[in-house]
């Protein structure tokens, strides 16, 4: 611990006063033999890229939060014109109704001139617009502390004005913004992982070169009785100083970029985009205190990577040489072998890394890589699930809905009613549930139950659903199917269906579940649990599908 603190303090000192000898005597391992200009430049560039990425992600998140709050606190009501309708009276009536609703802090109807102005970018500025039946807008500001029940407001307006008055809560835009920030954050994390990996690789290589080029110094240090920790600290200190210097250089450069970016864009844009316009679009376009603190964190991370990576490799090199450069080599203790074997190993005649040690290393590395792949796979799986559910689907021969929620069957009935397919199979129905009982649950679809719906009662799980559907599709002679189930369940369902019926064309129609928060899946524990259990089932399903495809290929 004492040695670590000493290395840390000396490393920080060396970073700021590289030429000055803090202890008054010459450095045992010359700094120039460890961190040359080229290495400093490479690590500085890595730090610069990491800071730039982190800063951009932070800025986008900040701006997106501002956009999101703006959009979330405002709702628009559109009053569409009708024949013989006095629009001013209609707008005034809707305004008075809205003003009486709880949770609405301000209602502001846009005048005809303001509505026309909104259309100017598309239709141009002319008075002829005044004669056209232009929809009128009413801007509503929501009391965020006591938000109104918008679905009830929408129902009330629909009950009174039918489709002449529409309420738009900008949900679509909110979803778009969330999607944008999520994509930027994921891309940013990806870039940061790449930068960290590249930095670690560069430091590993530099640590090896430093040890090789200072081999004589290391030997001399050994035979004058230096402890391994002392030797390692001589190198670690230089790498820590390198990390701090390069990190600061990168962070300062990135900080300058963020500081001057709006002005640079303005200059490059030839004056067509002003700095204040950029500020309106992307917030301040400059980092705040926390943003700059983030750059400081990157400096700490880069310095830490440099120090700990070099520490690990210097330690490793000192431990595996097996000669004078290896004060910690204890052959008998390490291998528990006879003195003859110990001597042979110590003198490099036998590998110090015996087959057992190598085997353990391979197992550990493989386990780590598998775990990494598993974790990464889960993130990709969870991110790829359709958040909003399917909007449309093309025509198919049949529809199959997997039981597990009323909304699934409801959507499937709507698709059947819309003529998207000839027949519907409800797969996984309880053995004692009758057609009559189901028809009573969906009273509007009674005629459909009489003509075009089949119930499958054999399936107990998704694999059962697939087999049941295959039998049904074969019996009816269907070559294409629309599969209806929850969005989070869709990847596994499709994998199981493709394994069982590789020749049938499958079209996914996912339903967004109300109890699953896909926008914040990583922070909602219930959603996380559900997705993880689904992922655990998805892996064998997709593996089975892979084997089945290879089998089909080999079978010709």
């Amino acid at each position, binding site marked *: 611990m004492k040695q670590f603190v000493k290395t840390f303090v000396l490393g920080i000192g060396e970073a700021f006063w590289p030429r000055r000898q803090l202890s008054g005597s*010459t450095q045992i391992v*010359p700094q120039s033999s460890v961190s040359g200009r080229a290495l400093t430049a490479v690590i500085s560039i890595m730090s610069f890229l990491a800071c730039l990425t982190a800063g951009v992600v932070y800025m986008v998140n900040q701006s997106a939060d501002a956009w999101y709050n703006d959009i979330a606190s405002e709702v628009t009501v559109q009053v569409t014109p009708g024949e013989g309708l006095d629009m001013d009276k209609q707008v005034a009536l809707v305004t008075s109704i809205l003003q009486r609703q709880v949770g609405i802090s301000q209602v502001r109807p846009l005048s005809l001139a303001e509505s026309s102005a909104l259309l100017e970018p598309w239709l141009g500025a002319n008075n002829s617009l005044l004669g056209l039946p232009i929809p009128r807008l009413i801007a509503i500001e929501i009391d965020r502390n006591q938000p109104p029940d918008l679905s009830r407001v929408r129902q009330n307006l629909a009950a009174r004005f039918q489709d002449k008055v529409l309420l738009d809560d900008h949900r679509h835009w909110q979803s778009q913004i969330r999607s944008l920030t999520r994509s930027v954050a994921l891309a940013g994390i990806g870039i940061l992982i790449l930068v960290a990996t590249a930095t670690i690789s560069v430091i590993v290589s530099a640590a090896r070169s430093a040890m090789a080029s200072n081999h004589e110094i290391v030997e001399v240090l050994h*035979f004058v009785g230096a402890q*391994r920790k002392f030797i390692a600290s001589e190198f670690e200190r230089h790498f820590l100083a390198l990390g701090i210097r390069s990190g600061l250089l990168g962070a300062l450069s990135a900080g300058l970029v963020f500081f001057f970016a709006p002005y640079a864009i303005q200059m490059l844009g030839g004056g067509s985009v002003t700095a204040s316009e950029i500020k309106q679009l992307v917030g301040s376009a400059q980092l705040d205190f926390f943003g700059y603190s983030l750059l400081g964190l990157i400096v700490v991370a880069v310095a830490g990577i440099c120090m700990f990576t070099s520490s690990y490799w210097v330690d490793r090199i000192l431990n595996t040489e097996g000669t004078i450069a290896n004060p910690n080599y*204890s052959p008998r203790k390490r291998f528990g072998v006879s*003195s003859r074997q110990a001597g042979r190993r110590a*003198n490099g*005649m036998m590998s110090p890394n015996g087959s057992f040690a190598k085997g353990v290393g391979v197992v550990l590395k493989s386990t780590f890589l598998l775990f990494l792949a598993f974790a990464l796979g889960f993130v990709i799986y969870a991110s790829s699930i359709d958040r909003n559910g399917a909007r449309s689907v093309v025509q198919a021969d049949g529809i199959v809905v997997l039981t597990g929620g009323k909304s699934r069957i409801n959507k499937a009935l709507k698709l059947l009613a819309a003529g998207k397919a000839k027949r519907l199979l409800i797969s996984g129905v309880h053995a004692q549930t009758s057609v009559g009982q189901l028809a009573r649950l969906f009273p509007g679809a009674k005629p459909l139950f009489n003509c075009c719906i089949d119930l499958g009662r054999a399936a107990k799980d998704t694999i059962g659903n697939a087999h049941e559907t295959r039998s049904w599709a074969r019996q009816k002679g269907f070559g294409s199917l629309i599969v209806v189930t929850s969005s989070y369940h869709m990847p596994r369902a499709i994998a199981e269906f493709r394994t069982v019926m590789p020749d049938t064309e499958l079209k996914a129609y996912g339903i967004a579940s109300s109890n699953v928060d896909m926008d914040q899946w990583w922070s909602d524990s219930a959603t996380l649990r559900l997705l993880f259990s689904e992922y655990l089932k998805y892996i064998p399903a997709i593996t089975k599908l892979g084997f089945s495809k290879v089998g089909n290929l080999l079978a010709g």
Partner: protein
Amino acid sequence: MIRFENVSMLYNRGPEVLRNVNFHLPPGSFHFLTGASGAGKTTLLRLLFMSLFPNDGNIFLFQKNLALVPPEERAALRRRIGIVFQDFRLLDHMTTWENVALPLRVQGRRESDYKEDVTELLKWVGLGNRIHAYPHILSGGEKQRAAIARAVIGKPELLLADEPTGNVDPRMARRLLRLFIELNHLGTSVVIATHDHDLVKQYNAPRLVLADGSLQVRA
């Protein structure tokens, strides 16, 4: 002080450099280690210094079996040994003074505690006017004396010297031998590996003679 019990040593799959070597050196002794080039003199010194480990047999140093010394204790054991290499092994980027002070510096001692000792020792070996000189401007003899000073600055109980007179003229060789004898009189055990018969003749000390992998002790 030093005991070899049936020590055998070979490099890779080559012939045995040392074969069943047995000897014992008491504390405060002075020995020459002689033998033709390639007889295994340097190998024997490296075994003593834990730079190599024997293929068979046991080496006892300061009453400890070297193969059983825990890794963390090896540096402490090496601090009780001074070693002089034929090629000096001085660090080129450090002054003579800094090279000689290195063993004390790696022990974590304050410079103010040993500043005078190092300067005095350098004067004693005749390098008082070369304190601030870097190794590349020192002559062979001066480098050898600086290397010896570095080996003895920590007051070792055992001094191992590998061909210490190999790079100097006969006059300087005699002077260095006198230095080793003085150190021995101060209580340090000395083992000098050399194939310089003239040097061996100058001082009446027992010889460890290496030939064909075997070792004989001759009075």
